[in-house]
């Protein structure tokens, strides 16, 4: 259980880091992890694609286009990546 929590925290940090890299102005703001960050923080499809690419490069996880909607919230990203990590 503790290992799960630790791993999820690690993934959350990775997700937020890459989100801030795409939108540096969000750094320092409190991010609602269950809201759709594309809508909430006005990321366009290009920004979102960059985010997906960055997460893919860091984790090595292939993310098919059809799965993109599952990664629209920070929580969604955590669950998705946690389920696929090795």
């Amino acid at each position: 259980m503790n290992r799960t929590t630790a791993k999820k925290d690690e993934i959350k940090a990775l997700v937020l880091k890459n989100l801030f890299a795409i939108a540096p102005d969000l750094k320092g703001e409190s991010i609602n992890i269950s809201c759709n960050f594309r809508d909430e923080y006005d990321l366009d499809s290009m920004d979102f694609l960059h985010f997906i690419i960055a997460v893919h490069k860091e984790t090595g996880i292939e993310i098919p286009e059809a799965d993109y909607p599952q990664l629209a919230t920070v929580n969604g990203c955590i669950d998705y990546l946690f389920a696929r990590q090795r």
Partner: protein
Amino acid sequence: MSEYRLPSLGADMDAAKLVEWCVKPGEKFKRGDIVAAVETDKGIIDIETFEEGIVDQILVQPGTRIAVGSVLATYHQVGEAPAVSTVTPAAQTTVASIPSTPIHDAATIVVDTGVSDRVRISPVARRRARELNVDVGKIIGTGPHGAISIEDIEKASSAVVAAEEQPAEKLGAGMRRVIAAAMARSKREIPHYYLSTTIDLTRMLDWLEQQNAKRSTTERIVYAMPLLKAIALALKQVPELNGVYVDNTFHPSATTHIGFAISLRHGGLVVPALRDVDRKDCATLMRELDDLVARARSGHLRSSELLDSTLTVTSLGEQGIETVFPIIYPPQVAIVGLGSVVERAWSVGGMIGSRRVITVTLAADHRVSDGHRGGRYLAALDRLLQEPEQL
């Protein structure tokens, strides 16, 4: 001896602030080189030159606000003797003639005189610094690579005496003013006509999704690319929408450079050109647009990229709106607006099914074309989008 003047960077720019020189006296430059960087309401722009020669004298120092057309430096041709300049530094006199606002004067970008890196700061943090009247040059950033964050600005500001508060211009007022000027000119001078049609994108999107499924995460293409390509190809069939209107004459363009409106995260927009869209494949266009968006947001667009569009495309679909009624960006003669892709009950061949459709609008200049030709253009665009394999 020749004079190097600040070029215009579009219909909506009358002045800029010199940020840094990229050449120094005695240095040789050629056509296409970046000679200086200036800060405009649209961010930092790298100014390219269309001349060549050797720099004699730098007349304007970084930090100075200059009007379009003022002399920045003198130079001579290779082989010509370097002339002694008779031009007096224009900076002081020019500044007085610019309708400058207090907030601009306060927005000093601090650059270590000349060559070193500029202050690392996001446009939003810079704006916050302006609002709070904080000198970013005096702040040590805590972000990545020493970047200054909004937090840093706010910390620095709270340390400053609050009594210095001044009736500040509204957020983004500078950029808003220049956009307003260009759009007012457009509405005053250009007799617009508007056409709109809904295009079934299902085939194109299905095709693109199949293609993307075969591509790795890093090589996928967004649907705007085949759309832009089709928009450019359709111009070949109705060339009177592609070009500029200058001195009461339409100058059609042989090349198709599409200005793509990019919204900036802190408000406002820039419209850099994606070049030769008709001749490039979608993967190349994707890479180039990526690069343009990144540079539009960080500052570092090249001056030529702001000037040589032959048609503009504005896409507001991301917000979920269905129809855009765009205003032509002078001196161009047409603009294409893209709404969002929506799923609709659609009748094809007598059968009602669910299709993904987009509303495409065209605003064009009646001095050059009429609704009949505009209609042909939208029909051509529709046809091209039904054969996505060709794009």
